[in-house]
């Protein structure tokens, strides 16, 4: 341990994170010195995408190593590369690439197109990458905070927009509060076990007796801190405001990537450190999942702002995903992974269309703004319908599978009542998703003058088509994706 502080193996483990940070810093420099013209700002997206390619390449390496030699760790066991980490890193790469692609035009329309934006996207991703691969409380916390700090800035990136500022401030205050709680929980865990390594902690927790107060305290604080991050009720209050206020590509990024990263952290901690206390937290999380689904689905029904509606819908989705963890069996965890994967594409697709409606001087985020979209752009309307149907969970689209596995998992554990509620809420959710589709066809008599307009560039178009195709592909031929998800879950269970 003393011989080499930072070995080649450590470098290999950290490679995606290092690449992201380097590219991020590079963008800051090139933006300051090379890009003089306002209109050329979009070129910052090129190195950001190059970073994704580089990260993807190193992930391919990681995956190869994991497949041939099993999981490997670095930095004295504080980071661990396994199928789980690789799978989540793939999700982040996908989410970040899509965010970069749809940002180029959107931020231009907002008049806030600056290089830092892309750099911050990459820094956030670096944080998430650490969250997925971390195996040590301190490392995990650093990852979480790196991500969160980047997001605070990204959410408030529209300096002249009040809503954006307000959202950022709320996010910051509440985020700090929850991080504080989480740090408190981590410190208790350290107190219990004398180590920050998850494996060690798991052993110490398992050795504790049933009604141990310190353990309860740790469980309370950790679960509340994590539930905040995934926006589960009653810790969801920030989500609608933040989603509504943030620039749309950032909203998509927060709703997909940050949620996936937080779930990764939650799965890691609950399935390793707290695994032996499962009896205690499972019913609690089950109840929270139910409350979350209830609030998310019913509140979404009355929203008129699309981003706010999608925010509540994402709260509801978090409830479903949480049920997978509650069931705790392999099917359920696989469901979580499949759900998150499908969620990337369908949610990004929806947000990309909202972003495309944004033009200078016009917010166009209300459901009414979608009126008559079909008559302008039938093709994109069909894509929107695909995303909405997938979010509802209608087969054979991607969104169906996550729900399918999770329902199956909770039924297997015998939570019939929960399953009934979850199924009923699917019917409720159809209502608000369909309202949006319906609006696209709506054109009142004599209301020809203001049909919805889509402003597309090549990147947005490509992103949309890719999202739609993958939503369909996962739905029709899901086996490879399910296998991939299964592989990652098996790693988490070890």
């Amino acid at each position, binding site marked *: 341990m003393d011989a080499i502080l930072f070995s080649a193996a450590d470098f290999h483990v950290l490679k995606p994170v290092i690449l992201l940070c380097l590219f991020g810093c590079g963008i800051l420099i090139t933006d300051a010195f090379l890009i003089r013209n306002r209109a050329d700002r979009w070129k910052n997206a090129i190195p950001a995408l190059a970073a994704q390619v580089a990260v993807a390449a190193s992930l391919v390496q990681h995956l190869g190593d994991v497949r041939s030699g099993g999981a490997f760790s670095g930095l004295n066991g504080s980071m661990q590369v396994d199928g789980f980490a690789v799978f989540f890193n793939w999700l982040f790469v996908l989410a970040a690439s899509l965010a970069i692609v749809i940002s180029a035009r959107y931020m231009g329309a907002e008049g806030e197109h600056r290089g830092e934006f892309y750099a911050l996207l990459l820094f956030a991703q670096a944080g998430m990458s650490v969250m997925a691969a971390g195996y040590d409380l301190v490392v995990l916390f650093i990852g979480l905070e790196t991500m969160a700090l980047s997001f605070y800035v990204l959410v408030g990136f529209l300096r002249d927009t*009040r809503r954006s500022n*307000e959202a950022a*401030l*709320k996010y910051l*205050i*509440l985020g700090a509060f*929850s991080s*504080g709680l989480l740090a408190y929980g981590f410190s208790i865990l350290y107190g219990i076990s004398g180590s920050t390594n998850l494996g060690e902690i798991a052993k110490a927790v398992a050795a504790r007796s049933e009604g141990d107060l310190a353990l*309860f305290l740790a469980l*309370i604080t950790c679960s*509340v801190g994590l539930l*905040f991050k995934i926006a589960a009720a*009653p*810790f969801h209050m*920030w989500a*609608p*405001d933040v989603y509504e206020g943030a620039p749309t590509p950032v909203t998509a990024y927060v709703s997909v990537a940050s949620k996936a990263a937080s779930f990764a952290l939650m799965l890691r901690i609950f399935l390793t450190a707290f695994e032996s206390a499962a009896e*205690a937290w499972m019913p*609690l999380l089950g109840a929270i999942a139910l409350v979350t689904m209830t*609030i998310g689905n*019913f*509140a*979404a*029904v*009355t*929203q008129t702002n699309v981003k706010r509606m999608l925010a509540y819908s994402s709260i509801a989705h978090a409830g479903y995903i949480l049920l997978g963890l509650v069931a705790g069996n*392999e*099917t359920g965890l696989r469901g979580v992974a499949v759900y998150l994967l499908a969620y990337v594409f369908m949610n990004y697709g929806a947000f990309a269309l909202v972003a495309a409606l944004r033009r200078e001087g016009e917010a166009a985020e209300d459901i009414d703004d979608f009126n008559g979209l079909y*008559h302008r752009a*039938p093709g994109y309307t*069909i894509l929107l319908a695909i995303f909405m149907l997938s979010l509802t969970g*209608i*087969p054979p689209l991607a969104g169906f599978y996550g729900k399918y*596995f999770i*329902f*199956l998992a909770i*039924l*297997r554990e015998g939570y019939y009542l929960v*399953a*009934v509620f979850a*199924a*009923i809420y*699917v*019917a*409720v959710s*159809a*209502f608000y998703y*369909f309202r949006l589709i*319906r609006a696209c*066809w*709506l*054109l*009142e*008599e004599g209301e020809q003058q203001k049909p919805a307009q889509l402003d597309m560039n090549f990147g947005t178009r490509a992103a949309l088509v890719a999202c739609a195709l993958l939503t369909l592909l996962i739905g*029709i*031929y*899901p*086996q490879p994706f*399910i296998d991939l998800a*299964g592989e990652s879950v098996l790693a988490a269970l070890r």
Partner: protein
Amino acid sequence: MFFLDSIWLIPMFPLLGAAVMLLFGRRLEPQHDQGPPADDHGGHGGGHGRPAGRTLVNILCPGMVLLSFLFALGAIFQLQSVEGHSYEVVKWTWLAGLDSATGMGLNAFTADWGFLLDALSAVMILVVTGIGFLIHVYSVGYMAHDGGYYRFFGFLNLFLFFMLVLVLANNYVLLFVGWEGVGFCSWGLIGFYFRKQSAQRAATKAFLVNRIGDAAFVLGMLLTFTTLGTLTFTEIGPALEAGGFQIENPWGPLSLLTLFFFIGACGKSAQIPLHVWLPDAMEGPTPVSALIHAATMVTAGVYLVARSSEIYVLAPNTMLIVAVIGALTAIFAATIGLVQYDIKKVLAYSTVSQLGYMFLACGVGAFWVGIFHLYTHAFFKALLFLGSGSVIHAVGGEQDMRKMGALKDKIPLTYKTMLIGAVAIAGVPGLAGFFSKDEILWKTFSAHQYELYALGLITAMMTAFYMFRLIFMTFHGDNRVDPRTHVHESPRSMTVPLAILAAGSILAGYVGTPIVFGPVHDMLPSLEHWLSSAVVVADAGEHHAAILEWGLMLLSVSLALLAIWFAMKTFKTDRYAGEPMHGILGKRCHQLFLRKYSVDEIYDRFVVKIGAQETGSQLGQIDRKVIDGAVNGVGKLTRRTSSLTIFGDKWIVDGLVNTIGYGVKFFSYPIRMFQTGMVQNYVLLFVIGLGVVAGYFLFE
């Protein structure tokens, strides 16, 4: 076995047509699709020339369906030589990820993109492709003057794709794909005249009511899987045997799952209490009403029950529920049908009522009779709907029967074919409806369900009455048509399908003649025998005297004839002044039927308003009003106590900002912030949540 191995192609042809239409169709329209006129038939009689692109649509879309029909015929022909009349084609495994390490005997679970052709799906694909083709041809004439031509045919083809997937699927999951898909297409086609608010509302309503049923379907599916460990149809029987399942009395998992399936079927097939969407669905173009909302999609529920017959027979209590709901729906819809004025609404309620008959048959254990009625009903109801479309076409878009009359000489072909349809549905001996309906009544009677038999008998009488009320009001009596309208017979593409369907309405019943017909029965092919390989056919059981069956048949026929005579007396000779139904039913009853028992209003009041909107807006406001209000008192307390905590400073600052307020420059921006939900309230809720979580752990 070329055709048998290509059964997967049968749904693919319409999919191809749909893809071409929906992706490239816009280019085929001469001017961009500005949408059809708001009025259903505003464009009719406008007589502008046929654009060249339409010829392609006219050949491609019906052509694809014809191809499917031919492949279906070929496959069924080859199926007869297969042992057990059942043939499965699995294209690839769809879901198989559940096999490892979970145990519970679920190891072999798969759901495939697999297609199953057996006696049951054979009947269904013939109905779907055959009648689907005729209705496509009819639509070429009917929709000729409407905008959005390609969109219409695209959706219609897409519908056929999903419907064929539904009936050819070899497992419940794939069936569910079709199930959802037809719902989606139905939504698109009901709302085809999207400029009409009522059409959009009807489309949304149909979709949402269907979703309630779908949720139950999903639960049924999951329960099937956890109980039997498989969702593949051909494995259900062996799984039931291997699991040693007995007839459940009163309740058990099988009863529950069949009940869930039945609720799903209620949604799709418009049974009480989920029947409300179907009459509204008549906002769609008439060919759509004929194909989707009469002949095919709405019968999917009956198909589902028949498909699961092996499970249903083990759940007698669910069967009873099915039978009772079926019989109640039959009579309930028939009473409403008695007083409707809109020609399509009469037919819509008639459809609901006939679907009730089908469920009644399934509920008393005569699954094959349910399918038999489904099959005959497809002919005469499609005929009646298309006929009504032809009438509407002729009188320039009018649907109110009070503004018709004396049309029989002006549109003779439509009159004759519709008359055949009416005679068939009324149950006059010799035509299709007589055989299937009488078989249902007989099976109900011989299952000792005498109350249900009585309901069925009264419904039959009402059916004959309202159907001939329709005929006499439309074609006989005084001419009440707007004199400015030029009444004209429909083009050949519409009348030829009518004639073919009329022939079908006469002949279709001869595959299910009653046993008491003796030599005639023996000579003709038997649907019961054919279906016995796919659905459970109950043993003959105790033998009733043939004389009893003859007697009951005589009873129902004479009641039907009596009803026809009564309708004729009332509506043919009457000068149609005032409201004869008023006098017959009495004021109260008439109002009750006319208002459709106020079910819509009740739903609107209790489910939509209170259930969804109120709850939804309450929860939506939770971060705005509820918390604000509830929290004010607690808030102050928290602010004080919070100063004791390590976080205190921050909240004190925030609290001061709150009370001192707006002047401070640093916090000047967020006037909005105080309106849209204060962050300290969020934190407060956070803390309360924390308290709940802590309480849970401490007091557990």
